[in-house]
């Protein structure tokens, strides 16, 4: 089955992916931080029971059966949060995953359930619709905690209301190079949004990948939050394109893109950091149509598959840093351009 990240989507020159995550909890049960192991088991069983084999062929995984390596590779594929991955090998946490990995449901993260839907490119409307369907489906079986005034009740007050975090992963090399990201971050924060590094909360941005998401969840509807995000994302995309156009004609820029490509095609050792910085340049070159046979789908997929834990999972062993960088270089050589 093709995974969601193996193809690029709408506005794919700038937008890597769109994601919606709903935080949901069950009435009269303590939040995960205060739950007993019996209560955790009970929730997992109830959620698993909602997904019998014939229903969509979701895989139901208990995190105690997942190795730390696999768990980290799931973080790299954006299926679970870093916090959730820390619980690999622990009981009381579980993951439900659709075959194309576009729908993932974390059980026992910060809230009882985190329902997440992702898609390549800019695509809020269809993924909200899908997230909404899974929400209704699970609500009818589990009965989510809800209050007339505060909306969906969540462990942390920052998620009260819709419990919805919508985000879009943007590739912003031109804005980054022109030092505009900080200014952008200040502006969007005044509009109830936030922009941060690729793996969310507290992560640095590598490869000029940034995640733009809504901060406020109480007092506005899901549609309002999404419209707000769409319109800001639209403006950022436009700016990024304008700066890219300015760079396109610079000989030094063209030189840099092709040097980056040369290194990726020939290097024998590639650290994660070097890979991200080079692939970012190449991706921009492909988006500008500078590289024959360049393909954004392939690059998006490579960005995920060349991350450390994904390499270790394919190698089926733990590797030291040098061996990992060698595996990465070999993998990138084979997959950068066909």
């Amino acid at each position, binding site marked *: 089955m093709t995974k969601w990240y193996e193809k690029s989507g709408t506005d794919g020159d700038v937008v890597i992916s769109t994601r919606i995550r709903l935080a949901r909890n069950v009435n009269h049960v303590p939040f995960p931080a205060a739950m007993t192991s019996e209560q955790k088991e009970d929730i997992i069983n109830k959620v698993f029971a909602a997904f019998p084999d014939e229903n969509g062929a979701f895989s139901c995984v208990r995190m105690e059966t997942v190795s730390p390596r696999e768990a980290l590779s799931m973080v790299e594929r954006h299926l679970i949060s870093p916090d959730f991955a820390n619980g690999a090998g622990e009981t009381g946490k579980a993951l439900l995953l659709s075959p194309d990995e576009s729908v993932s449901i974390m059980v026992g993260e910060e809230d009882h359930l985190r329902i997440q839907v992702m898609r390549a490119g800019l695509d809020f409307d269809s993924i909200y619709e899908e997230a909404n369907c899974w929400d209704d489906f699970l609500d009818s079986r589990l009965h989510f905690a809800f*209050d007339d005034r505060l*909306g969906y*009740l969540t462990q942390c007050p920052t998620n009260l209301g819709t419990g919805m975090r919508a985000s879009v992963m943007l590739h912003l090399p031109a804005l980054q190079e022109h030092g505009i990201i900080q200014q952008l971050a200040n502006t969007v924060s005044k509009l109830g949004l936030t922009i941060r590094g690729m793996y969310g909360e507290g992560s640095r941005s590598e490869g000029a990948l940034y995640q733009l998401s809504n901060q406020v969840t109480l007092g506005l509807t899901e549609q309002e939050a999404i419209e707000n995000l769409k319109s800001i994302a639209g403006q950022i995309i436009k700016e990024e394109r304008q700066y890219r156009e300015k760079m396109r004609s610079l000989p030094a820029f063209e030189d840099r893109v092709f040097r980056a490509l040369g290194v990726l095609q020939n290097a024998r050792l590639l650290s994660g950091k070097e890979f991200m910085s080079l692939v970012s340049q190449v991706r921009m070159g492909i988006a500008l149509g500078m590289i024959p046979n360049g393909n954004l789908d392939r690059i998006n997929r490579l960005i995920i598959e060349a991350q450390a834990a994904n390499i270790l999972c394919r190698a089926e062993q733990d590797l030291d840093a040098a061996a990992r960088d060698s595996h990465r270089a070999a993998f990138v050589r084979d997959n950068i351009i066909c």
Partner: protein
Amino acid sequence: MYCDYCGKQATTHVKKTINGQTTELHLCPQCAAEHGFGSAFGLDLGDFWGSLFSEPTKKSIADTVRCEDCGRSFREIAELGKAGCPTCYRTFYDRLLPSIHRIHGKTQHTGKVADKADDSLKKKRELQTLREELERCITAQEYEKCAELRDKIQQLEEKGGETA
């Protein structure tokens, strides 16, 4: 209480403990925003929430009531920056509201309504939409549609949606 920076009315109170020395910071909304406390953005909420409620006057009443579902007191919730269970929000609604307002700028949910949630809210929303539509039809002089909408509104009201 006045702002430590500019002397205006302080609305945010932050406690900081460095090397066992506790200092308190009082900030007006503008200065709080400038120091990253005015909104939920980029802020260690646990610390923030806790410090908000750890004033001595509030401490004394905090521990007498406990959430009937999870047993947590208001003080415990404030210190952890996290509710113990959904019922905590209903039990301590009034006391949690100021910081909820501080985080979101609003206190009334307007988004999706859970299926098993109180039906009256759904009706209230539906009625509101119908009334707005009716007003629009009156202005547009679409009288046939007006009659239709009035019937719908009446039906909903008879079902008891207006009692809430």
